[in-house]
């Protein structure tokens, strides 16, 4: 990140007059003192290190007091609408104040994609520094996941999911109706460890299909994704019907034809499983010869192999 903006990122600094200071104080009168301090420093020096404090301070001012504690966790995955109760109109109020404080203009189209606190912070930093904007976090309900995934129920273990450039998150609630729970185990339904690993693998597939892999415009062909290996898989908690799994994966290496991820599963605050490495093979669409439609059935991640790896 640029430390002194007018040196490294070329932001022209305008003089910060006493009038500007008075306007800034008035604009931020309902924000914390720290927000004003950060904003004044930014306006004087152009130092973009102050931006997160300014943006968070402005968001906080519009969050109902009983929800403000959530912002203290500085969790960039906090969702603006669902977690903070901010609707699109309040989002506009936030934008107007940000525009006023940072002396910038944000258009409506740019706003539509900002779903998390992290999205907003990244967006403002890129705007101020003149950097290209990253693709925002994409939130996918189950219907949308099913429409892009080669894996389908009853073997799909992702509920809602979110995907951005840095990884993917998903939830899966163990309903108790999963067919394999009848026998795993007798009178004692427990989610198989192999299925936990499968679910992480499926989230990695979703990332390859929906995330930003390779250069812009290149699309991963879903028929080319298969499991190859995994390392360092450990289970910490037995998962049973009613548990909601919070799955997350992050890419470690992405270079066609291999993609390696680290993954973990939590249930609430409890660690359920981790995988240090899950590796899939994949290819881009234009690298694949177009086969006849029925030539190759849509594959799942090769669950058999992953199961073997877990059991090994």
């Amino acid at each position, binding site marked *: 990140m640029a430390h002194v903006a007018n040196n490294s990122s070329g932001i022209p600094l305008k003089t910060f007059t006493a009038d500007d200071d008075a306007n800034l104080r008035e604009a931020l009168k309902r924000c914390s003192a720290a927000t004003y301090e950060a904003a004044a420093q930014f306006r004087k020096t152009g130092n973009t290190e102050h931006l997160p404090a300014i943006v968070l301070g402005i968001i906080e001012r519009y969050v*109902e007091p009983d929800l403000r504690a959530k912002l203290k966790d500085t969790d960039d995955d906090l969702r603006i609408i669902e977690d903070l109760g901010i*609707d699109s109109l*309040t989002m*506009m*109020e936030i934008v*107007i104040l940000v*525009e006023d404080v940072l002396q910038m*203009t944000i258009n409506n189209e740019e706003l539509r994609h900002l779903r998390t606190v992290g999205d907003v912070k990244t967006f403002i930093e890129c705007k101020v520094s003149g950097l290209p904007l990253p693709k925002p976090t994409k939130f996918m309900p189950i219907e949308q996941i099913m429409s892009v995934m080669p894996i389908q129920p009853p073997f799909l273990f992702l509920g809602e999911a979110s995907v951005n450039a840095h990884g993917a998150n998903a939830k899966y609630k163990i309903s108790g109706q999963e067919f394999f729970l009848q026998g795993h185990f007798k009178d004692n339904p427990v989610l198989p460890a192999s299925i936990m690993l499968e679910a992480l693998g499926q989230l990695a597939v979703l990332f390859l299909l929906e995330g930003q892999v390779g250069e812009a415009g290149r699309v991963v062909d879903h028929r080319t994704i298969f499991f190859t290996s995994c390392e360092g898989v450990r289970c910490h908690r037995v998962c049973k019907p009613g548990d909601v799994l919070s799955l997350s994966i992050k890419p470690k290496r992405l270079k066609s034809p291999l993609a390696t991820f680290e993954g973990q599963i939590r249930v609430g605050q409890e660690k359920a499983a981790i995988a240090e490495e899950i590796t899939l093979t994949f290819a881009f669409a234009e690298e694949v010869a177009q086969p006849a439609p029925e030539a190759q059935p849509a594959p799942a991640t090769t669950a058999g192999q992953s199961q073997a790896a877990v059991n090994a």
Partner: protein
Amino acid sequence: MRKVYITGVGFITSIGNDAIAVTESLRELRHGMVQYPPFQKPEVPVKVAAPIKDFQTATTDAEDWIFPARYNIRRETLRGMAPHGIYAYCAMLQAVEDAKLTEADWSNPDTGLYAASAGSPFLLGYHLERMRKLGVMRCPPLGIVASISGTVNFNLVSQFKIKGASTGFSSACASSAHALGFAYDEIARGRQNRMFVIGAEDGNVESILPFAGMRALSLQTDPAIASRPFDVARDGFVGTGGATVLVLESEEEVQRRGPKVYCEVAGWGQASDGYNVAISHPEGHGLRLAITNALKYSDTTAEQVDYVNAHATSTPIGDISEARALKSIFGQSPTRPAVSSTKALTGHGLSLAGAMEAGFCALAMKEGFMPGSAHITKLDPACEGLNIIRATLPHRPNVVLSNSSGFGGANVVLVFKGAN
């Protein structure tokens, strides 16, 4: 046609911020006028207004507003509201409590809401000035819904999750009387079981002072005599704001729920002067026809009417035309009916007036009194022949009319009857 009853009231007015305070002011003829601080400047010829007490809504930033501690209003509710939106919201809370309604009672397809206000010239002016100075993209996103006419129904329908009929009415000083009349129709015709009727106004510099331009405001400096309808020395009206909410319910709902009943809404009538954009017909032709219609549609004879809550705003022309209309209906009877204008106490609430005065009639019928026409030192000779009561009478009226007249010569007359 089904019978319709008033079962709940809520008031934020210049003479009290709940039904108990308002009843006391009406009985004791206590007025709400003051030398209004924003008018005390050499360039402002008007000095007196009847503001709302215990609320501070003078800044354009709703988060600065102060209201009585019993009302806890969240920012997301506040941000879409004008000052009179807050008054209406608080009066609505009073009304649902008074009628002993639960959310299940009011949030359903059989319950609607009709409202009237002139919008908020105060906020509209501020937002337009901001748009011109800073550009449209720096205007608050809810500036429009907070300031245009309709703001009361937009806000309350969404905040109270109203599912039935909703709209706003715009006939200036007859607006909320129209709202009540059409709300009555919805229930009487079986389309709705319950209706909220709301009249509200900011009652601040921007909503009152422009009437000085048309020479309609009193220039009196003494708050005790500035508003004196039917007095020979009256010189214009005194502006006010606030809100009134009335709950109207069908007889089936009254039987089912068993709430207390203020009175029956027996019917209404309207007619227009077709005469002048801002001046009432000198002989009161439109109002006379509106009274005739109201009596006809409520199966009432002129002889049955006990009390008329007059529109009389304390303007020289308007009061006389109303007096002529009343005389043409009730003849030269010195004893019946009793006539008074409660605007002597409240000032003129513009779009609020019809609902507020209907609420006063409901209180009078439930508590058993007729409020006097205050501040008359010498009755205008043109009003002689009417039984204009100078003091409050301790009798329960059984048949009551409430008159309202608005710009363009719109006249509305509401008829209320004892609930028994």
